């Protein structure tokens, strides 16, 4: 049984059709990359999967881990292991990164039937993960994402993913804004998460990320449809030819 199965998905935002029939199957353990021009609907797909309000599914269905995903509220999906690294992480003034992450982790642990971590256990766990991403204690203490640089925000998303250990992680342009060193750190953090029971959906504009996080499949999204799917070589081809060669083409 696939971990995620999307069939004929149509979605609108403010009455405007954005996704126009998406089919996508992700088996457990697979890494899929989605590439596509600006405005093609990549983030919209991510939000629909995460259950954001205002993104209306007008047709199609999504099954996640054997369940009807569209029946689940956003927080239920998160607790069931679906994680979205935001393209634009949100600022929450006054809330320390650790406070936030601890609340999130314990909510998810509770759902899994695990006992909550206490302050000491949590701090130890987070510091380990933060160290690997070069995130300082100071950054953990500061208000969540407030005044963080673009790259810091993205590293912070990667940290949250590492701590929450999702089953299905969607990374929406997590590489954008990262410098070369940070890109490698984040990529190795993502690779460390790769496991037979865990899947990744990586949204990116750059083939370079896929050198580090090597995908099993690459899909090209244009006008709310997957117009072409292939293996990692598709990304290389895309890099050479640009979207022009694919947009308007029929799904392969």
């Amino acid at each position, binding site marked *: 049984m696939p971990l995620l199965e999307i069939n004929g998905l149509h979605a609108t935002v403010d009455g405007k059709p954005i996704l126009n029939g998406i089919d996508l199957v992700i088996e457990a353990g697979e890494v899929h990359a989605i590439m596509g021009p600006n405005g093609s609907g990549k983030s919209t797909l991510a939000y629909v999967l995460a259950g*954001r*309000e205002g993104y209306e599914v007008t047709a199609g269905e999504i099954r996640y881990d054997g369940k009807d995903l569209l029946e689940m509220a956003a927080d239920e999906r998160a607790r069931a292991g679906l994680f979205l690294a935001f393209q634009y992480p*949100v600022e929450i003034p*006054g809330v*320390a990164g650790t406070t936030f992450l601890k609340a999130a982790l314990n*909510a998810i642990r509770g759902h899994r039937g695990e006992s909550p971590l206490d302050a000491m256990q949590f701090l130890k766990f987070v510091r380990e993960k933060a160290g690997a991403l070069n995130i300082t204690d100071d950054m953990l203490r500061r208000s969540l994402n407030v005044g963080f640089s673009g790259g810091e925000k993205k590293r912070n998303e990667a940290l949250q993913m590492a701590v929450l250990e999702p089953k299905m992680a969607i990374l929406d342009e997590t590489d954008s804004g990262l410098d070369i060193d940070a890109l490698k750190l984040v990529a190795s953090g993502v690779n460390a998460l790769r496991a037979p029971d865990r899947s990744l959906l990586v949204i990116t504009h750059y083939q370079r990320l896929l050198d580090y996080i090597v995908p099993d499949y690459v899909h090209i999204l244009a006008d709310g449809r997957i117009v072409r799917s292939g293996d990692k070589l598709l990304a290389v081809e895309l890099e050479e030819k640009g979207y022009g060669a694919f947009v308007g083409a029929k799904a392969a």
Partner: protein
Amino acid sequence: MAVTSETLAQVKSVTEDGYKHGFVTDIEMERTAKGLSEDTVRFISARKNEPEWLLEWRLKAYRHWLTMPEPQWAKVSFPPIDYQDSYYFAAPKSDSDKPKSLDEVDPKLLETYAKLGIPLLEQEMLAGVAVDAVFDSVSVATTYKKKLGEMGIIFCSFSEAVQEHPELVRQYLGSVVPYADNKHATLNSAVFTDGSFVYIPKGVRCPMELSTYFRINAENTGQFERTLIIADAGSYVSYLEGCTAPQRDEHQLHAAVVELIALDDAEIKYSTVQNWYPGDEEGRGGIYNFVTKRGACRGRNSKIAWTQVETGSAITWKYPSCLLIGDNSVGEFYSVAITANRQQADTGTKMIHIGRNTTSTIISKGIAAGRADQTYRGQVKIMASAEGARNFTQCDSLLIGDQCGAHTVPYIETHNPTARVEHEATTSRISDDQLFYCMQRGLSAEEAVSVIVNGFCKEVMRTLPMEFAVEAQKLIGISLEGSVG
């Protein structure tokens, strides 16, 4: 690190989910007949075995009260109060032979505290807090008295202070809030039944947080607490006040008076967590909380800091204030006020600068949800004598939903050109982006709101003593339950 929930294990939280304090303990009450008259005042005074001067003072207040109109300026509305429909005195039956220790306390009472999660017996051990528990106007238990007594600290019920330390009471009672101050305070002066009294002698630093849990019980009993705290020269005290109330159908009037006096180089920190029953979603049955709190920085370099977390009551009318009389004295006011459903709050502070180089800081965080309405009303007054006075005010409002309101009404009055007064105000809303972000990380909508609101209030929360902060943090979450989704 900021206060987090793990300390909850140490300090038992007052509430679990929702308002669970909706029970009335059936301890027999001894009370006056309903209604208010000179006889009521005499009855209370006689019942408490008070000296003549105090009875006279009460009567003076009562007679003045009859002539006073209700204050009309606050932005709250409610039907006229029928003062004749209340009881003005209720004491637990066992009043005559007061317990010497907790062992002698009515087990029913202890049970009530246990239900509230206020483990008196464990309190000493856990938090090192001496508790003077007021159950319906009469103190039933005082701990740590001996240890404090050895340092010359007096911490007792107000009635006890009247008997044991009449000279101190007589000297300071009404010296900060005169009996004719305002309608609510005047009523309190006439019919107050009990409260707390604290005296910290010269140069003594009170080694523990002094704490009183107020609790209203008995239906239809107006509650009139009187608190008087005196910090003598060079002393320091931190005082905590918190309260819960059982659910009921009728509105309940509460008109407390708190007077603080800080002499030379003395410091008083007064923290309140208030979660009285706010009424149901339509506002029925909640407490009317009309409180007069005022501190006088009489001495040079003296300091008074008010911190309050207000989540309860149907109507709150409250302006903890500082009279900055001594040169270089400091007044601070940190406030979090949360109103949800039909709650109304009109709260704020007054900083009256009289002495030279006096400074005041006001940080107010207001959160409104549902159809609640709240107003911050702050007055900063710089008298001609207050050479070099400074004030900084910051007022932030956070709105949840689009049917609530928040208003900021600053009054600034300066009679000295050397004064510097700064005022900053912001209004924001919890955004859908923030809610979705939190929920995408696994938090329920309610947990998300709680996290965001606690972040918004952080500057105030960190001024609370630890054990209070934990409780307050949890209360914030509870009081906003049901306000999203």
